[in-house]
């Protein structure tokens, strides 16, 4: 569903993404791991058509994002980092706007909004300005917006960042419910999340993919069998204690 080939992104002298390639099929939930500044967000911004790659390609359902950006954008649901939303709008107004832009009209629009609102539990706050909502509710508004058109591809940048344990749990449940019918990429630096929701994980460091496998395969790369140890070993180059962990 998602095919990424040798993506590169320069910001002036900074090489943020350095030849990243991977693919994600329907039914897969790909965890995108890496320390801060590794290039996770930049990669996602290129796949979603926000940033233009310096080189390389990203295709979604067979459509190249630089050549057919609108076809790609129509198929993706995207939750940018921090779940930005128009602060003066209410969730109701905001979701109606997104639905209109996505070409949903009339009864179909109302049905889809009702569906996602009950899915992420926004019922109580639909008429309240978004900037008065708690962090958890704001995140739900962002999630609702991303799944409004029931996209085949869902891309979420740190969807549980800054949420309390209960809210994290809710978001993970939601992802698990949708997992079988979509191709999902989510970035995180919380390793337990990978085990809770991901079928596969990629670790990137300084713009390069340094590991790619199922959570079980990744864990097996360190003698302790713990994901944090693998992560630390790979992303700090601490090979002395890392046992089998190394460059792929």
């Amino acid at each position, binding site marked *: 569903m998602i095919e990424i080939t040798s993506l590169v992104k320069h*910001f002036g002298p900074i090489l943020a993404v350095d030849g990243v390639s991977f693919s994600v099929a329907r039914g897969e939930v790909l965890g995108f791991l890496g320390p801060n500044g590794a290039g996770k967000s930049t990669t996602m*911004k290129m796949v*979603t*058509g*926000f*940033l233009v790659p310096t080189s390389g390609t990203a295709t979604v359902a067979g459509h190249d994002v630089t050549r057919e950006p*609108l076809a790609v*954008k*129509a198929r*993706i649901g*995207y939750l*940018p*980092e*921090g779940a*930005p*939303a*128009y*602060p*003066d*709008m209410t969730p109701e*107004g905001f979701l109606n*706007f*997104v639905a*209109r*832009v*996505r*070409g949903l009209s009339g009864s179909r629009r109302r049905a889809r909004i009702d569906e996602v609102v009950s899915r992420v539990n926004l019922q109580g706050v639909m008429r309240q*300005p978004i900037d008065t909502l708690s962090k958890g509710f704001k995140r739900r508004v962002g999630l609702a*917006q991303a799944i409004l058109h029931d996209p085949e591809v869902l891309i979420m940048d740190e969807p549980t960042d800054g949420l309390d344990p209960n809210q994290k749990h809710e978001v993970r449940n939601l992802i698990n419910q949708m997992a079988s019918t979509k191709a999902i990429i989510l970035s995180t630096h919380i390793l337990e999340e990978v085990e809770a929701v991901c079928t596969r994980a990629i670790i990137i460091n300084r713009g390069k993919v340094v590991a790619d496998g199922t959570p079980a395969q990744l864990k097996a790369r360190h003698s302790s069998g713990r994901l944090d140890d693998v992560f630390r070993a790979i992303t700090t180059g601490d090979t002395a204690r890392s046992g089998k962990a190394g460059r792929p």
Partner: protein
Amino acid sequence: MTRFLPATLAVMRRELGGYFLTPVAYVFTIIFLLLAGVFTFQLGGFFEGGQADLRSFFTWHPWLYLFLVPAVSMRLWAEERKQGTIELLLTLPVPLSSAVVGKFLAAWLFTGLALALTAPMWITVNYLGSPDNGSIITAYLGSFLMAGGFLAIGSMISATTRNQVIAFVVSVVLCLGFLLAGFGAVLDFLSGWAPQPIVEAVAGFSFLTRFSNIAKGVIDARDVLFFLALIAVCLFATAVIIDTKKGG
């Protein structure tokens, strides 16, 4: 192309609705009407003129717009950058041209609405005497066109920054340049050293000259085209700026 119109309308609708979610719209409209009244009656010598027309009202519009229009346009793009919603907007299946045009049209309609609320003045003049209503309509159209020119300049400046105050100040300065371009003192200063064609070109950019023609009730296609072309060029520049400066 089929997505252009619905997407533009959806963006315009959200933006226009946004003006009324905060007190900004009401404050702006009231200030606009107050200043229009003060300028017309106190400074313009509406009563002393002894004539039932709106000449003294329209004369002040360029100066009224100089400060009020940048206050409307400053948030167009700067706010999207500041809130991070630009990433959301530009990863929705909206052509960039739709986003630029939709936002501009919302700002233009909003300004047009404030302008329309000065109609009581027009009614009063008709009550007091028998003005040339044809030229008044022409002057209203010219004023609206000029507001569009100011707004398009403001949109372009707003696209360059995430800071509304900077957008406001730079827009005022640039718009002032367009106003002063027609002043005798400026042209005299220029003709001291610049070649004649440049002096004429600068004079041709003058909002004051263009507008005063239309405000007198004289519609010249060249003046109308000037404002329309200026709007088109500035909106195109807005799109180019957004496209090349999305990440930052």
